[in-house]
C-alpha cells in the first residue's frame, strides 16, 4: 500500500488510477491510504462545473482545458455521470468531448458513476480529489452529473463553481428560485448563438442585481462551446474569482468549514460502525424487526432499547447485563 502512495507521489498515472478505484470501491485499505495521502494535499484549486443534462458542460471543460494548458497548469478532471438505480450500471460518456487531451500527460481524466449518491457528485468524488491533489495537479475540475434544481453538493466541494445554463430555460421566475441559482460564482450562458441568449443573460443579471451587498457579484459569461467563443473570458472570470477567494480570506474560510465537516463525518462514521458492530454482536436484529412488523413493538422505543443493551448510554454503563 505504501508503495502505491509512493508511486502516486512520484506522478505514476497508473498508481493514481488504481488508487481512485480503491477509494471508489470502498476498499478496506481506503482509510489507511487516505491517511497517507492527506499530508500531500491542499495545493490544488478545485473548480466545479454544474448544469442541466446536455447544457454543454463536457464541451466547455474540453475548451477550458485547451485554454488552461496555455498557462502551463496541470489539470485533473473528474467527470460524473449517473448510475442506474435499477442495474447499478452506468454509461460514462463525458470523456467523448475531452479525448483530444487523452495524450496530454499533464491532464488526467477520470469518469465516475454516482453509485447511489444524489447530490450531483459520486460517493467518492471528494476522496478522488484528494488523490489527484496529492498526485500534483494544480487544478482539479469536477464536472457534476446533469442536474436539475437542487443537486448542489458541488458547492461544498469546489472552491469556485460554474453554473452552466442555456437559452430558453424558462421565464424569469426560474432565476429567483432557490437551489442551483444560488450556488454560482460564475454563470455561463452556453449555446449563446441560439435565440433567446441575451434574454437569459439579462434575466440572470437582473436577479443578481436584486442583491447589492455582495462581496462577489457573479459575472454572467456567454459562451458557444462548439466554436470556442467566450472561453478566454470564462477562464479570466475563474481566475478573477480565485483571486477574490484568496485575497478576501474566503478560500481559507470555506476550506476550514470543509475540514470541520469532514472531521464530523469521520467521527460519525466511526461511531456508527462501532455501534452496529456491537449491535450485531449482541442482538438478533431480525427477530426485533419481525416484532416491529407485527406491531408488538415500535421502532422508537426499540432503538433506545438497542442502545441500552449495548451500553451506549453512560447511565447504563454501570449496570450489569
Amino acid at each position, binding site marked *: 500500500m505504501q508503495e502505491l502512495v509512493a508511486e502516486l507521489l512520484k506522478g505514476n498515472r497508473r498508481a493514481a488510477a488504481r488508487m481512485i*478505484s480503491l477509494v471508489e470501491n470502498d476498499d478496506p485499505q481506503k482509510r489507511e491510504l487516505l491517511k497517507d495521502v492527506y499530508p500531500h494535499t491542499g495545493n490544488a484549486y478545485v473548480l466545479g462545473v454544474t448544469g442541466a443534462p446536455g447544457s454543454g458542460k463536457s464541451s466547455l471543460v474540453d475548451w477550458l482545458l485547451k485554454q488552461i494548458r496555455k498557462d502551463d497548469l496541470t489539470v485533473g478532471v473528474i467527470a460524473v455521470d449517473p448510475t442506474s438505480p435499477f442495474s447499478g*450500471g452506468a454509461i460514462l*460518456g463525458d470523456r467523448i468531448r475531452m479525448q483530444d487531451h487523452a*495524450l496530454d500527460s499533464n491532464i488526467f481524466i477520470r469518469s465516475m458513476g454516482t453509485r447511489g449518491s444524489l447530490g450531483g457528485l459520486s460517493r467518492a468524488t471528494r476522496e478522488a480529489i484528494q488523490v489527484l491533489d496529492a498526485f500534483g495537479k494544480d487544478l482539479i475540475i469536477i464536472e457534476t452529473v446533469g442536474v436539475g434544481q437542487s443537486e448542489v453538493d458541488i458547492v461544498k466541494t469546489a472552491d469556485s463553481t460554474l453554473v452552466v445554463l442555456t437559452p430558453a430555460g424558462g421565464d424569469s421566475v426560474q432565476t429567483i428560485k432557490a437551489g442551483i441559482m444560488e450556488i454560482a460564482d460564475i454563470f455561463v450562458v452556453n449555446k449563446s448563438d441560439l435565440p433567446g441568449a441575451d434574454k437569459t443573460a439579462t434575466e440572470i443579471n437582473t436577479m443578481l442585481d436584486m442583491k447589492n451587498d455582495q462581496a462577489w457579484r457573479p459575472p454572467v459569461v456567454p459562451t458557444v462551446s462548439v466554436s470556442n467563443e467566450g472561453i478566454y473570458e470564462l477562464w479570466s472570470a475563474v481566475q478573477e474569482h480565485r483571486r477574490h477567494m484568496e485575497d478576501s480570506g474566503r478560500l481559507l474560510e470555506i476550506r476550514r468549514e470543509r475540514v470541520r465537516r469532514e472531521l464530523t463525518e469521520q467521527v460519525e462514521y466511526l461511531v456508527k460502525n462501532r455501534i452496529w458492530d456491537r449491535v450485531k454482536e449482541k442482538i438478533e436484529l431480525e427477530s426485533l424487526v419481525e416484532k416491529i412488523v407485527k406491531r408488538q413493538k415500535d421502532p422508537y422505543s426499540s432503538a433506545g432499547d438497542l442502545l441500552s443493551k449495548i451500553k451506549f448510554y453512560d447511565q447504563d454503563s454501570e449496570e450489569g447485563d
Partner: protein
Amino acid sequence: MTEKMIRVLVAKPGLDGHDRGAKVVARALRDAGFEVIYTGLHQTPEQVVETALQEDVDVVGLSILSGAHMTLVPRIKKMLAENGMDEVLMIVGGIIPADDAAELINSGSAEQVFTPGEPLDNITEYISSKCKSNMQS
C-alpha cells in the same frame, strides 16, 4: 465492504464512422450492471490505451468495422501490456472474418471475438464470468 465494480472501456479505434453497434453493446453492458466508459469515434491506439489506464478498466471492448482489426487489435494489446495492463480482458466486436477471429484469439491479442448476430446476453455473461474468475485468482 468492498464492492468491486466491473469497468469496461468501449472504444472505436480507427476510421470507420459507425457506432450504432458499440452503443447497443454499451447499453447492454450498462443494463448488466457494469460501468461503461464510452469514448466515441476515431480513437487512436494511444488514446485507447491511455484511457484504459486512467479509467483503470477491467475490460477493453474494441468495435471495429473497418477491416483494420488485424493491425489495431494486436497493437493495442501490446501497448496495454507495455503499460502494465496485461491482465485487462480484451474483447473485440464488429465485422471480423472467422479466420481472423481465430488468429486474434490464438495469438493472444484478443480473449474473445463477437460478431453480428451474437445475443447481447452472451457478451455480458462472458464478461461477468471472466471478471469474476480474474478477481478470485
